[in-house]
Structure formats: structure tokens, C-alpha cells
């Protein structure tokens, strides 16, 4: 509450003012978070007991196939779920407060000032009938910034930060190109230099070149301003170079979570391995690749054991019945029975390493 009266950081200070102080514990801790959707045929669990932590200034990537619950997880963290979705268990501790139990009034000051969101499609996330500036102003006014000149200055500063001419403050969203809209969204997320920016596939609507350039820009801003990022995508290669840690989701569950390089170099879960194998490269030798046969299970008919079991090349009997837990494998968390000491002997050599 008292945050709302504190005056926002000066624009000039954007680059330097913030230094990620590792307070007591990480910036964000998600424990045991589950989200259910009420459907006509009963509730389905889209996010199933997920644990996640993000340190200050950290870049965490979340990858997974379409429909595995990435967006749902993000919205659950930011308390933006709407009916028919609801959080059925778990907590989200952000800056020491459990967001799940906070009401709208308590959430309001935290939102945007401390935690902002960039959505998948900027076309839909920007209000089509308001000028960019008005949309920025809305956010600032909601947090007590009243002065017109300050609003204007700040808007211009963030817009220029992402490399868009300040003249575009007066544009409507439809007058901007896709890339510009996406940048304008990112700029809006930086209005208060929050500690955490949540990004839901912010680049997937762009083509490769624009995607690359935007990724670089995000990374640059993050390093410059020091905010933490949760970055969701279904394109593993996109985050490969940018994220510090990577979480792989499958069918509502986290399958693997660990430092990005480790996951790439040494995937601990057969699903991560499969994903990596499915990426052709533009360099090196052309080798025939094999995808993962089959398709993800439907939310309403989840396998009882490991959710990846029906498609897993390394499955064994117990996989169908025993739900695996998260096992620590060399600093990486992996949800695979192969890493359970009880089933270690089933492990083929290549995977166990």
C-alpha cells in the first residue's frame, strides 16, 4: 500500500538505479500451484502442482508444446485468471507476499509497478480504440502518477528505450506494424521498471529476423535495467541463448527445470531430449531426425503414471502406473522415473550418463 504513494523512479535513473539485491530468498516462489478449468464435462487440471522460483534479475524460460499450460501458469502467477479458470492449490510468493490470497485492492499496487506482463499478441492486448499514449497514461494514473508532463516524459522515455520514435505515442495500435506493437507493449511493461516482467510468447507472431532483433533487445534491456523475466515460448531454440534457467512443461506438469545450458547439453528427461532431437540445424551435417511419435494427452484423459509415458521411447512398465516426482539430477530437476533410485536399473546408459 505504501508503495503506491512512493514516487516512481526517475526516468533518468532507469538504467542505473536498480541493482538486484538478493534479499532473503528469491523474488518469486511458486509452490505446488495447480489451476483447474471448469468445463461442461467437469474440471480439468491445466497446471498441475508446479513449483518454480525466480531470482531477482534472472531470466527464466518456460518451453513446452501448445496447450501444455504455459499461459495458464503465467496468468496464475500474475493473478489474472478469469472464470472458468481458478487456482485450486498452491501459493505464489512474490516479494514475500502470497499473491493467491490477496484481493484485488491489495494486488493493484503490486501490479505493473512490481510485476508487469507482456502478452502473446500485441494486437489483441493493446486496446484498439485508444492511442498508445493513453494506454500508457492509464497504467500510470492507476498508480498515482498524475502530472501530465511526467506521464508524457516517461512514455517517451520508455518508447525510445525500445527504439520507437516518440511520435508514435499518438498512434493507434492498428497504425503500427506487428513488430512495433510488440515493442510498444514491452515499453509499456517497463513504465515503472518492475522487478519482474512476465512475457508470454512475445515474439511468436513475428518473422525470424524481427524475432531475433526483439529478443536481443529484450535481453539488452534486462541487463541494463536488471529486472527478472519469465519468458514463455514453444520454440526451444529461441530461448536457448537468452535464458539463465529453463523449465520444460508437458501436459500441465513441469518435466525438467534447470540451468539452460545444462538442459540443452544434457537433457535429463526423455521429453526434453526428444524436443532437442526434433530441431534440425542450419549448420553442420544434415542428419535424418526423428520426431516424437504420437501427440500430447488430452487434459480430460490424463495417463495415471508419467504423462509422457505413451510417447516415451524409454518407457518401462512402472511408468504407466507410478507418477514420477521431481528428482534432482546434477543441479537439474527432472520428473522421470529413470532418475528414481528405485528404478535406476531400467535406465539405458545414454540417458543416465
Amino acid at each position, binding site marked *: 500500500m505504501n508503495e503506491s504513494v512512493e514516487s516512481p523512479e526517475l526516468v533518468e535513473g532507469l538504467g542505473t538505479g536498480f541493482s538486484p539485491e538478493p534479499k532473503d530468498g528469491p523474488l518469486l516462489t511458486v509452490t505446488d500451484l495447480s489451476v483447474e478449468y471448469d468445463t461442461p464435462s467437469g474440471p480439468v487440471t491445466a497446471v498441475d502442482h508446479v513449483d518454480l522460483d525466480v531470482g531477482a534479475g534472472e531470466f527464466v524460460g518456460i518451453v513446452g508444446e501448445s496447450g501444455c499450460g504455459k499461459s495458464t501458469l503465467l496468468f496464475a502467477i500474475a493473478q489474472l485468471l478469469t472464470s472458468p479458470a481458478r487456482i485450486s492449490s498452491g501459493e505464489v510468493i512474490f516479494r514475500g507476499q502470497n499473491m493467491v490470497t490477496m484481493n484485488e485492492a491489495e494486488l493493484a499496487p503490486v501490479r505493473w509497478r512490481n510485476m508487469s506482463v507482456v502478452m502473446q499478441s500485441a494486437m489483441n492486448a493493446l486496446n484498439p480504440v485508444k492511442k498508445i499514449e493513453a494506454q500508457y497514461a492509464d497504467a500510470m494514473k492507476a498508480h498515482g502518477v498524475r502530472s501530465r508532463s511526467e506521464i508524457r516524459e516517461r512514455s517517451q522515455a520508455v518508447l525510445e528505450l525500445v*527504439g520507437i520514435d516518440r511520435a508514435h505515442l499518438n498512434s493507434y495500435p492498428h497504425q503500427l506494424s506487428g513488430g512495433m506493437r510488440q515493442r510498444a507493449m514491452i515499453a509499456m511493461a517497463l513504465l515503472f521498471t518492475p522487478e519482474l516482467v512476465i512475457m508470454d510468447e512475445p515474439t511468436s507472431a513475428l518473422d525470424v529476423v524481427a524475432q531475433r532483433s526483439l529478443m536481443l533487445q529484450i535481453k539488452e534491456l534486462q541487463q541494463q535495467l536488471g529486472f527478472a523475466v519469465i519468458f514463455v515460448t514453444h520454440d526451444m531454440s529461441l530461448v536457448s541463448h537468452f535464458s539463465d534457467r529453463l523449465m520444460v512443461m508437458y501436459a500441465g506438469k513441469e518435466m525438467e527445470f534447470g540451468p539452460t545450458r545444462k538442459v540443452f547439453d544434457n537433457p535429463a528427461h526423455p521429453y526434453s531430449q526428444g524436443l532437442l532431437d526434433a530441431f534440425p540445424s*542450419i*549448420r553442420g551435417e544434415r542428419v535424418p531426425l526423428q520426431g516424437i511419435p504420437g501427440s500430447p494427452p488430452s487434459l480430460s484423459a490424463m495417463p495415471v503414471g508419467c504423462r509422457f509415458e505413451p510417447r516415451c521411447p524409454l518407457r518401462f512398465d512402472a511408468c504407466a502406473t507410478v507418477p514420477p516426482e521431481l528428482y534432482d539430477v546434477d543441479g537439474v530437476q527432472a520428473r522421470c522415473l529413470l532418475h528414481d533410485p528405485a528404478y535406476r536399473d531400467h535406465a539405458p546408459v545414454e540417458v543416465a550418463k
Partner: protein
Amino acid sequence: MSDPAPLLEARELTRVFRVGGLRSRKQLHAVDGANFVINPGEIVALVGESGSGKSTIARLLAQVYTPSSGEILFEGTPLSSLRSRRDVLAYRAAVPMVFQDPFSSLNPAYTVVHGIMRGLKLHRPDIGPADREAEARRVLEAVGLTPASQVVGRYPYELSGGQRQRIGFAQALAYHPKVILADEPVSMLDISIRIGLLNVMTSLRDDQGVSLLYITHDIASARYAADRMMVMYAGRIVESGPVEEVLGNPLHPYTQLLVAAVPDPRAELTVTAEMAKGEPPKVIDPGPGCRFADRCPLAREVCRTTTPPLLELKPGIRAACHVAADDLGRGEESTGGAPLGAKLAA
């Protein structure tokens, strides 16, 4: 070209759209003077940024659009001379198209096999009505929709984007085609199943000699599946040649940019400079000159005044770039794009 009779050939293929209001004279040059061939049994990848005209080329070949000028020849016959319904149907059977957007390319009012069954009825008179369903199952399984019996009776909204996309592909397979025009056939597929469909494409080529025009954003998958590659920028083909050559040694600055932008988890991040800012290309009433000139770090005066022709700069490799043409002279030394890439990175 070595082959005397290419399967499909485009000559100065151009398509402009009138945009704006009723009396507007603005013209959008979606495809401008494209020349290319597709030979039997090869996969040609067509890459380029969004809006560069890739789909328009496919649609021109599929006769969804009529060319504004230029000509398309099928096995040496101009398409404009196809008159009778029989000839037209024969062409339709030989050159099916897979549409880009699987959400809109299946009729929501029918089960997903509707298109396949209609296609069989129109193009495969050899298959009687009784056997059509069996044939439909066969092609569905061929694209990895197993078991087909689970898919046959479903409506499009009951399937995921990836499944629908494969239905579209199965439809094309059903006709015994000679060339499949595949417009981003894997864009909606999840990474884990994408490669499977690419493998279907390559085996079609290898086992049945079917050619493909493979349109994609995904350069890596183009390299994985295709034999040759064409790069488009703002309605023009700016580079074409064997896939490995084009990717390993891009001649056109845009191709270089494209290649550099492709993320690769297995490789180190090489290019860190801020790339390719600036405006999207002008395709509405473009003037003369290279359309990439505004974004090109190497642009010269000539680039802004003269449209570079698509020249064969190396054997089998053509590029439309004044700078590259100058660098290579008219000689055939393969100095490659290294100096260009270095300049770009700076």
C-alpha cells in the same frame, strides 16, 4: 537448366493487388517478375519474411489467383491454354495445394475427410465409392494420423491445429499428385511432431518422385527437407540455388541476415549487433531499385535507382544484388559471403 522439361515453370510471374478504396489506384506488388522452375522429384523451399509473397506464388501456381502478367507452364504447356474442364481437372489433380492456415482450410460443416472424399471422387475415378473410405484412411495414416479410424468421423473443431494441418496434407496426397504446393504445412505443428511430417515429405520425393514447393519461415526445416531454396524479399526472388550453397554461403545481404537470425541451440550466439531495424519493405507502388536497399548496410547509390536482376552469379546460384554481383565480378571465384557477413556484423 539441365532438365529439358521442368514440371512447373514460372516466367516473369507477376501479381499485383489493387488496395484501398473503390477508386484507389494503389497497387500492391505481391509478386514481381518471378522466374523459377520446379523439376520432377525435387523439393524446392521458398523462404522469406512475412508478406514477401510466398503464399501468393503458391496461389498463383494453384490457380487461386490469376497472374497479372507472366506465365506459368505445366510440363511445357501454358496454363492459360487449359480450357476444357477435363484439362483443368487434370491440372488440379497433378498440382494440389496445402493451405497455410489449417483453421480456415477445413470446412467446419463437414467431417474432416470431406475434402479427401470429394477429391477422390473428382480425381480418382479408378476408385469406386466403396473404396474411397479405405483410401482416405490410407492417406491419413501416411501423414501420421494413426489410427485413422479415430479421425475419420471427426469435425475440424475436434482436432488440434497440428492434426488439421496434416489433414490438409493428406488431402493433397490422395490425388496422386506430381507437385504439392505446401504453404507452411508444418507451422502449427508442435516441435515434437513437426519433423515427422517433414520426413513424410522427403519420403514422398524419394519413393514416389513427387515434387514439392515447400514454403516456410523455418530455415532449418527448409535445409532439412529441401534440395533447392529460393529466398524472397518484398515480392521478388532475391536468391536461389541448392540449399546447402545458399545457406552456407549466402550471396544476398538479406539471405545473410536471415541465416544469421536463425536461432540454433546447438551453436554459439554469433551475431549480437542490433539487426534489421527500420521499416518493412515498400510493396505498394514501389519505385525502381533494390527493395532491400533501405535496410541494407551495404547499399550503394545504384541500389536505390536500378532494380538488380536475378543473375546466375555462381553455377546454379542466382542472386539479385548489385553488391554481390560486383564483388564476384563476372568471374566465378567462390570468395563467398564472408566479407559481407563481417561487414554486416560490424
